[in-house]
């Protein structure tokens, strides 16, 4: 088998449709008789509903139905716990999930109270203004420290306080390490809220076909199979009666995976009840309070060091904000806890966290999913250690790297997939070497920075390292089928939100099947096309679905060769499979196209041998024993304007190791896009709430997504340490770019403004010109 496509920078199969406006997104679904929905959302963060008056809204022409929690009957129940807590004896977890509409008590701004269905979206939105709700406002616990304080207003009255969960994981003996350490550094670190803000908001369209007895749902979900199974359960249908289609999705980044958002129940339920299709498309204002958020932790962390800067141990006690409900288990704090360990050999670790409910929108994974926070803590601790011990910032990292011969490396705690936090492979020093060379680290520190400083320029450099646990289980699958046209169909259960799966998945199969990558039609996210799957999250699509595709393609290849060998009455090793046909080696004219061969494999009459399966088709599943650990290092040179405290990124370099690369174009895009989100998170984006739990900047004019002016040109290089956990050697790359940007900004700004000399430390993210001004003493 020759490799033509795997590893090559193939342009994408999906692009022509996207570039010409022909790709189907959820809001593009138009159906005869379509109704439109809008939701009345709470303006208060904590309140009891005394009464709801729907009379005027119901009387409005064009309003078809209005539902409150009372109307939902048995359909009203708290949503599922999407991710259970890890099976550890010491874990505390209080499951409190959200129902489709508020029954009595509101717990965050934006929580839905009433669901209006009308002949048009405009009428539905008009009717929201007709609804009169009598609220009894209640005191609010709008932030972590308020919620954690004794006597705080409680989010869930049946719990004694706002504690949602607790977990401690340890490795080695940190107390002993601290006792013999030359230096112990302890600080408090904060990482505040942001949101993923995909340019496409969420949306759901549902159609109930009573004659066919089937429900079809188009949903911007990242987990269509999961949603189908859940919907069938809630609506009293069999799973075979429900088809969920996640068509083209305009970005996801995590929050689109949550099940169930209230609308995901309400829209299909109303479509069945009204026997007319219903559409709901979230608007941007809703998105800011109705789609989940992330970040929001406070860490009290300490590091124990030997005189040469080697880490003896780390202790971390942190608080995590769950928001008003906790449907997503401990994925985020577990990722924070685990990813803090980074690429470093840390012999002792004592990490415990407490999650609190607050009167704010729900927190679930967003690109990085907690990894950022852990990386911020360890990287900042290392910067402080370097400063205190007089060691170069890059050098202290190098001294602590896990040695290349120490893999697989067991960190002795449990990761988010409930497998051991074990690094499959890695080689970190060459990555750092390449990074320092590309950024010109030594020359900058020795020559450029002193020269520029002498000229009055506030320039700084920063270097950070990280790992990314990727490619976790449980499993994904793929079905590959050679069609009679000769084209190949490849279906998988994962959805796609821009990652290029239509191309990278095709690349994996094309080489095995000897067909052009353009002749493979990838279907993702349609539960009628592929029945099983977990979803697109945790940088796992390429690793887990990709390996299943590789396996299935190999089986189809064998079927092709066997069928052709029978046809030509020759040995399989005499056959050549290429260019969409099988030929007998060295015999001109002895060739059959794959489409014709597929026809032979599906005889319409006659007898077949026992055990014969029709078609050139195979389905395969893959689940890794544990995740593949990717790694990376970022470096940046910035200039800070001392008047405005705005910064300009002069140079940005990424060296990344995601094992074997399927498509370097797509990998570059993933890394660059991740860095852009990291830049937003580090310096521009912050969800600002007041003490009453009101979001103060819920528009894109106020919540600042970085534009082309804020995101610099990046230089990207790779080192390649294949994963031993899958035959392709691949690791995930989806979140890599976004993870380490916070500490990079903090370190670079400190260096540019010479803050260590002034005794000022940047221990929080996001930063901003305004926040820097405050931290610098307002002068």
């Amino acid at each position: 088998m020759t490799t033509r496509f795997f590893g090559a920078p193939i342009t994408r199969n999906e692009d022509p449709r996207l570039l010409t406006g022909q790709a189907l997104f959820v809001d593009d679904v138009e159906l005869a008789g379509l109704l439109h929905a809008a939701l009345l959302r709470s303006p208060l963060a904590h309140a009891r509903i005394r009464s709801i008056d729907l009379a005027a809204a119901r009387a409005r022409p064009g309003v078809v139905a209005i539902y409150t929690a009372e109307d939902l009957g048995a359909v009203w129940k708290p949503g599922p716990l999407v991710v259970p807590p890890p099976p550890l004896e010491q874990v505390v977890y209080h499951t409190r999930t959200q129902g489709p509409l508020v029954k009595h008590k509101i717990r965050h701004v934006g929580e839905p109270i009433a669901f209006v269905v009308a002949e048009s979206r405009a009428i539905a939105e008009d009717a929201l203004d007709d609804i009169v709700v009598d609220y009894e406002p209640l005191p609010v616990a709008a932030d972590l420290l308020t919620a954690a304080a004794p006597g705080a207003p409680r989010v869930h009255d049946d719990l004694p306080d706002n504690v949602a969960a607790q977990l401690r994981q340890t490795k080695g003996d940190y107390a002993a390490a601290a006792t013999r350490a030359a230096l112990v550094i302890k600080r408090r670190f904060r990482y505040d809220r942001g949101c993923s803000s995909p340019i496409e908001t969420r949306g759901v369209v549902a159609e109930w076909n009573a004659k066919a007895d089937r429900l079809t749902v188009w949903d911007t979900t990242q987990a269509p199979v999961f949603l189908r199974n859940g919907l069938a359960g809630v609506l009293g249908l069999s799973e075979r009666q429900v088809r969920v289609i996640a068509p083209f999705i305009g970005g996801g980044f995590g929050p689109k995976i949550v099940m169930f958002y209230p609308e995901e129940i309400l829209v299909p339920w109303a479509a069945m009840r009204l026997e007319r299709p219903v559409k709901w498309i979230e608007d941007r204002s809703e998105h800011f309070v109705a789609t989940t958020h992330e970040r929001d932790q406070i860490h009290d962390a300490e590091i124990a060091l030997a005189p040469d800067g080697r880490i003896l141990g780390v202790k971390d006690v942190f608080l995590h904000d769950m928001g008003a409900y906790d449907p997503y288990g401990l994925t985020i704090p577990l990722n924070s806890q685990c990813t803090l360990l980074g690429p470093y050999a840390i012999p002792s670790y004592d990490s415990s966290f407490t999650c609190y409910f607050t009167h704010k929108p729900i927190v679930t994974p967003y690109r990085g999913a907690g990894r950022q926070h852990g990386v911020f803590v360890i990287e900042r601790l290392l910067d402080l250690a370097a400063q205190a011990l007089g060691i170069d910032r890059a050098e202290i990292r190098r001294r602590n790297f896990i040695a290349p011969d120490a893999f697989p490396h067991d960190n002795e705690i449990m990761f988010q997939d409930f497998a051991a936090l074990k690094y499959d492979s890695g080689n970190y020093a060459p990555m750092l070497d390449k990074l320092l060379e590309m950024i010109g680290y030594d020359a900058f520190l020795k020559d450029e920075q002193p020269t520029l400083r002498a000229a009055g320029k506030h320039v700084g450099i920063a270097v950070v390292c990280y790992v990314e646990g990727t490619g976790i289980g449980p499993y994904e699958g793929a079905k590959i089928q050679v069609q009679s046209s000769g084209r190949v169909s490849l279906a998988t259960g994962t959805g796609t939100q821009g990652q290029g799966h239509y191309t990278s998945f095709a690349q994996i199969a094309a080489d095995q099947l000897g067909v052009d990558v353009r002749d493979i039609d990838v279907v993702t996210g349609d539960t009628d096309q592929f029945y099983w799957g977990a979803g697109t999250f945790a940088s796992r699509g390429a690793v887990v679905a990709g390996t299943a595709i590789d396996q299935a393609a190999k089986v189809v290849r064998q079927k092709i060769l066997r069928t052709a060998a029978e046809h030509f009455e020759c040995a399989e090793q005499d056959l050549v499979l290429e260019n969409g046909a099988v030929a007998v080696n060295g015999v001109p004219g002895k060739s059959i196209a794959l489409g014709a061969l597929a026809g032979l494999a599906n005889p319409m009459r006659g007898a077949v041998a026992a055990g014969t399966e029709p078609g050139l088709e195979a389905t395969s599943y893959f689940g890794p024993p544990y995740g593949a650990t990717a790694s990376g290092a970022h470096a940046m040179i910035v200039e800070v304007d001392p008047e405005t405290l705005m910064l300009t990124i002069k140079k940005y370099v990424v060296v990344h190791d995601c094992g074997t690369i399927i498509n370097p174009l797509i990998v570059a895009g993933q890394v660059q896009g991740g860095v852009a989100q990291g830049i937003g998170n580090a310096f521009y984006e912050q969800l600002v709430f007041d003490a009453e739990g009101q979001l103060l900047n819920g528009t894109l004019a106020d919540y600042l997504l970085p534009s082309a002016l804020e995101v610099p040109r990046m230089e990207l290089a790779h080192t390649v340490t294949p994963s031993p956990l899958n035959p392709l050697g691949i690791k995930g790359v989806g979140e890599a770019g976004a993870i380490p940007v916070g500490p990079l900004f903090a370190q670079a700004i400190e260096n540019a403004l010479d803050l260590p000399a002034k005794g000022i430390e940047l221990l929080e993210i996001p930063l901003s010109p305004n926040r820097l001004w405050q931290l610098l003493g307002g002068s």
Partner: protein
Amino acid sequence: MSATRHRVSLTVNGAPRTTEIEARALLSDVLRHELGLSGTHVGCEQGVCGACTVLFDGLPVRACLMLAVQATGHAITTVEGLAGADGTLDGLQTAFRDTHALQCGYCTPGILITMRAFLDEHPAPSEAEIREALSGNLCRCTGYQHIVDAVLLAAARRRAAA
């Protein structure tokens, strides 16, 4: 709210179109849901994200900030009007594909339209000029670098062909 409907006649992608709509209907909604041109995407309905950008008599405008009745008698170009009649991608679209300048593709129609107008005015743009022109369109996937590369490439190819 009166539901009086207004007759609106405009030219879209070179073809005359007539529809009856409420006065409050946005141009973006009318293009998408009345005229079936769903390639124009809506991201914020507030004029910030730029996903809904269309050409209005040749100039880029936010279709979400304009009432459709205001477009009466005017010529609109949407993303569906960029490629050739046979579906052949135009130079900018081709460059976007060649450089991997789109991921989810949701912001892409607005960016193509904005950059199409920009390239007509700036046949030999610098990277800084492209970034400035692009700064009114938000993309959450790409980090913009490949988009800038695509515009540079399209401009270079256009000059080479001229």
